[in-house]
């Protein structure tokens, strides 16, 4: 069955610390991977996506993610976090069924950045 696992449910960091959020997926088809962010009181926003090509994907706000096929992973990184990065982060895989698709989400990681 398709699934996405996010290993850390809560992460607390100080400003300027480096961030890595783990994501592993289970899906046998063509892999399209996403990271979404949900700031407090706001809707899900796309941070970055991987469809094909360079496995190191750069997104908005200084985030990047690396697709490692052999590890079924798509970890999110940021070298230096800011207080404004406090949010919940969701990893998702696009699953295809016939010509249609749906997103399968991980449970999310709540990040709190202290000044």
């Amino acid at each position: 069955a398709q699934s996405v696992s996010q290993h850390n449910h809560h992460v607390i960091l100080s400003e300027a610390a480096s961030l890595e959020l783990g994501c592993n997926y289970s899906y046998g088809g063509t892999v399209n991977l996403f990271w979404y962010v949900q700031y407090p009181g706001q809707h899900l926003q796309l941070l970055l996506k991987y469809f094909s090509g360079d496995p190191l994907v750069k997104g908005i706000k200084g985030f990047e993610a690396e697709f490692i096929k052999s590890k079924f992973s798509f970890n999110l990184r940021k070298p230096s976090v800011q207080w404004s990065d406090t949010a919940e982060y969701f990893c998702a895989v696009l699953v295809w069924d016939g010509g249609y698709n749906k997103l399968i989400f991980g449970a999310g990681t709540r990040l709190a950045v202290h000044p």
Partner: protein
Amino acid sequence: EPEVTQTPSHQVTQMGQEVILRCVPISNHLYFYWYRQILGQKVEFLVSFYNNEISEKSEIFDDQFSVERPDGSNFTLKIRSTKLEDSAMYFCASSWTTYEQYFGPGTRLTVT
């Protein structure tokens, strides 16, 4: 930048009542979705809609749920007889292609 909008932002209803959650997708998008997130749990797919019909639905999407695109701009989710366990945040999403989905701000449904 165009956005997906949803109304209301918060809906409180009594068990057994019908609710309709409304979404206005981005205007040139062709694919529409509903997801829900029960408090403290992951975001779950409910249903996808294309060409005026359901293209896929999850096991959560039982006979109590229905979707409609009544007028070419709105996309609604109806729950006929709400249960306590329907309390959740409901997200609408739309996409132009089948790849990148844009999400609305969500409607928080509270069933009492």
